């Protein structure tokens, strides 16, 4: 099981701040994960409609969509940052 955490409008659209998910073995990269999540229901499809804008952190570190997710205990999905 892997912990997924969501923020800002990704969190609002998916409808929960976090969850534990079993990730299938054919899901290798961040990009694979985003495509996989979109199959889990309308709320995911809505949140991840434009996957290229979604920012992803593995174990609280920014990664590219090409990165492998193997070994990640916590995966964060969120929109581009707007702090500061």
């Amino acid at each position, binding site marked *: 099981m892997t912990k997924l*955490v969501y*923020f800002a409008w990704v969190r609002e659209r998916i409808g929960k701040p976090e969850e534990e998910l079993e990730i299938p073995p054919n899901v290798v990269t961040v990009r694979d994960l985003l495509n996989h999540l979109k199959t889990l229901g309308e709320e995911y499809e809505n949140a991840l409609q434009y996957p290229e804008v979604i920012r992803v952190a593995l174990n609280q570190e*920014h990664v590219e969509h090409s990165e492998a997710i193997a070994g990640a205990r916590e995966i964060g999905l*969120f*929109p*581009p940052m707007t702090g500061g």
Partner: protein
Amino acid sequence: MPEAVISTIRVQTEDFELQAEVAALTAGRHDIGAVVSFSGLCRDEQGALSALELEHYPGMAEAEMRRIGGIAVERFSLLGLTAIHRYGKILPGENIVLVIAAAPHRQAAFDGANFVMDFLKTSAPFWKKEHAVDGTEGGWVSAKDADGEAQDKWR
């Protein structure tokens, strides 16, 4: 020569005290010639905005601020760096973020604070939601292309 130190990295709901934070950086030191502070405040967008709601990724926000700060300390040979970011509801006129950079000379202090703000804007996991004065949620603030471009000056 005292060590270059990131003196303070904090994510908090409460406001900060500029004077106290500067004093914490400079107290007892005689090698600091320049201190530059940046305070980011909530604007009311010509009266349209009643508040900002700041969301953050706990743990990662601090880690990312510390990572950016470490790069700045090394790159500009800073003698001290403070970065404090608030979260939760913030009213117009209130502080959102504080960055302070201390250095022997002025340009390093200016560059250090400016660099940290540019990267904090696009890399630290914070998100702003607007609340309009008419009671509606104005929605999530969109990331600005200008913020990404602002980083280009540091290449």
